[in-house]
């Protein structure tokens, strides 16, 4: 029992720390792109996330009078819990909390539950802006979840396993990115839409919706939403490095690095890519986003899945 708790803490504490410093990295990279200095006051900018977190926790918690109080407090907790639970099945160099043969399916099943947090949180705060943001985010996440689920199955087809460790071992000579490069690009776009990142951050479009589903939230619940969003981003970059970049195999990166470092470095490069996109691209319109999902990505990805399955059936 104690060992299990230590195992969970060994995962949760580094995740929270990495979320904190991801925000710092994001601000620094965006500042560099926009030729600014970024955060540079508190410990030369290094302790800025800690100061921000402290500020958030000290703030007053305001609960809307006519909202549903129980759901209002429950939604951020659910969102954070779901995004932390996903780490149970993700491997770190042959080690994960639970070694499941159905890890990919468990991952997809748990990550599909995170919509509830947003939807209930937006509805319970009894505000038009929050509700519209929640509805938008829910429809966006559902449509792109479908595409992501299909795209994950490309790696599953070529690895012939539902276990993440097997999928990485299957890429010992060539990473999946080489075979599936166009699919990898669609995967990146779908991740951006799924995690509500910038070209698709229509849930938090400031000009239209103030701040989306988290308008009414302040203090710790807001911090929960914030941490969960960034955790989801880290999870998806981690999964990208597992499914397409070859995990801890030395494929793209130089040989002298230890395997775990190269694994983490790959996911970090994906994260930097997301931040780069945030600093450069303008926002999409909502109907364009959904048309992209349902009219272009879904039929093409479905056709590609069938073609890949048929090719594997013929060749194996």
């Amino acid at each position: 029992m104690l060992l299990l708790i230590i195992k969970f803490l060994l995962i949760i504490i580094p995740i929270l720390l990495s979320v904190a410093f991801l925000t710092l990295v994001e601000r620094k990279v965006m500042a560099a792109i926009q030729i600014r200095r970024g955060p540079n006051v508190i410990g030369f900018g290094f302790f800025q996330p800690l100061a921000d977190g402290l500020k958030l926790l000290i703030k007053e918690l305001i609960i809307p009078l006519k909202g549903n109080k129980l759901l209002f407090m429950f939604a951020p907790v659910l969102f954070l819990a779901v995004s932390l639970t996903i780490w149970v099945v993700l491997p770190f160099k042959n080690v994960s909390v639970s070694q499941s043969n159905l890890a990919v399916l468990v991952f997809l099943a748990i990550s599909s539950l995170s919509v509830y947090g947003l939807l209930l949180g937006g509805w319970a705060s009894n505000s038009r802006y929050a509700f519209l943001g929640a509805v938008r985010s829910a429809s966006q996440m559902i449509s792109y979840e479908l595409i992501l689920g299909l795209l994950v199955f490309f790696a599953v087809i070529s690895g012939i396993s539902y276990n993440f460790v097997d999928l990485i071992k299957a890429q010992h000579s060539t990473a999946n990115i080489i075979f599936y490069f166009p699919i990898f690009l669609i995967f990146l776009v779908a991740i951006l839409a799924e995690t509500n990142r910038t070209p698709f951050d229509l849930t938090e479009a400031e000009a239209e919706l103030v701040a989306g589903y988290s308008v009414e939230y302040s203090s710790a619940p807001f911090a929960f939403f914030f941490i969960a969003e960034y955790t989801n981003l880290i999870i998806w970059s981690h999964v990208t490095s597992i499914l397409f970049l070859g995990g801890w195999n030395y494929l793209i990166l130089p040989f002298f690095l230890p395997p775990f470092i190269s694994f983490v470095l790959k996911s970090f490069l994906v994260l930097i890519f997301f931040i780069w996109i945030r600093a450069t691209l303008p926002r999409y319109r909502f109907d364009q986003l959904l048309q992209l999902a349902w009219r272009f990505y879904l039929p093409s990805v479905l056709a590609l899945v069938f073609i890949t399955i048929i090719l594997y059936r013929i060749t194996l």
Partner: protein
Amino acid sequence: MTFFIFLSLLLLTFILITPNIMHGLLGLILLFGNFALFLFLLDLPFLGFAYILVYIGAICVLFLYIILLLNLRIYPLIMRTSFYFASVIGILFITTLISTLFFSKSLLIPPYKYSIIPLEDLTLYTQYLFEAYPLYLLVAIFLLLVALIIALSTTSTMAYIEDSRKLSKKIYTSN
């Protein structure tokens, strides 16, 4: 296993009885989760996780979405059906509820005991359903068809939605 069957029937009655549609949806999510656990117990983990992914992750979200968008808070169906009809169905339901407690153990063969050859989850489960309980399967299919037709015929008139809006307005303004 008996406990899970009992719980699922209990949740079903809760969904039918409750006037608050949000509670009904919560019951539905619990029912799906319950059935997923039931599948885990039957040694069909793949189907269990697929069930969570499809039903809780997608279909229930769509239900929730529609409920939130239409702002339906009160479910008027229970006030429209006649009391005698409802009581007959209720008595039938309760008798099945109690009978499962006593008879389900002898009824159920775990699917992994059913097939000698190791099969995939989906093949095993479908073969199990079609060969061990063909009659129950046919009844379930017929009930599903009836439910589809009823849903189509009731929602084709917008009167239900209008009524529910009026009702919820009445209740929420009186508080």
